[in-house]
């Protein structure tokens, strides 16, 4: 089929048949935009954003984040004899120490004085 024949055939088609590909592309883009907006909303409202150190500005600390943990935890099945209880106690004591040893988010690091925005005397 020559180009002239194709053009002639196209002229016989109605508006919908001529533009449907464009309409489908438009609909696909619209759906994608909606999906991205929903994803961004979920990302921001669910608290995921706060755990995302790949955000700009966090490069300096990204490497310091503990990525995978070798800690397998305590098996959720099995008998609960004195040996199993001792095993739990050992694991729990270790983790308890680790979790409670640091006083996180304490200290007055953002006081008016530290930021030099305190009221002049």
């Amino acid at each position, binding site marked *: 089929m020559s180009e002239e024949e194709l053009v002639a055939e196209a002229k016989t088609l109605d508006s919908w048949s001529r533009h449907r590909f464009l309409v489908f592309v438009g609909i696909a883009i619209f759906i994608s935009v909606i999906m991205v907006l929903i994803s961004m909303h979920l990302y921001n409202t669910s608290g995921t954003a706060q755990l995302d150190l790949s955000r700009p500005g966090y490069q300096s600390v990204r490497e310091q984040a503990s990525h995978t943990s070798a800690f397998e*935890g305590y098996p959720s099945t099995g008998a609960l004899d004195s040996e199993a209880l001792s095993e739990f106690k050992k694991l729990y004591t270790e983790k308890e120490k680790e979790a409670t040893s640091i006083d996180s*988010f304490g200290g007055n690091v*953002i006081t*008016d004085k530290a*930021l030099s925005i305190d009221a002049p005397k």
Partner: protein
Amino acid sequence: MKRFLFVATISAILLGFVAGPFAYAAETEMTQQHIDRIRANCVEAKTILQRVHVSDALLRVNRGQLYEQMSTKLMEPLNNRITLNRLDGMTLALTATDYERQLNTFRQSYKTYDETMSDAISINCVDKPVSFYDLVVSARQKRKDVHKATLELHKTIKQYGVDFNAFEKYVKERAG
């Protein structure tokens, strides 16, 4: 009567709009010198805030992971195991539920704090020094709330340990 109520409602709304800023100003009581000082030092202050914000994000990730592990890898498996063995672990289950609730409070507190810090860092503090100051005050309070949430978690972690000791005693007595 209806007309009176209508006028009273409109007056109350208008009064709220007019008095609001004054009430706020009275609460903050900022002098012009203080505002000037904030304006002069706020860029430097924002650099410090940015640094704290970044280090707190790292702390949130690392500590959060540890707090999650306490629940998902220790408390929950033990509670499941107690149930499977048909033992009485009600106290441990209740403490674990408390811990989960506090973990949610920690997550939510940190999210609110992070958002306020981001607002404080992104605001144009030279143009809006009072708003900047208010955001810093708010962020400080929210950081304290996060700290409080971590202390609550620590307390419950210790409580679970105490409950476990009692449970261990109960199992040994039951066996012996």
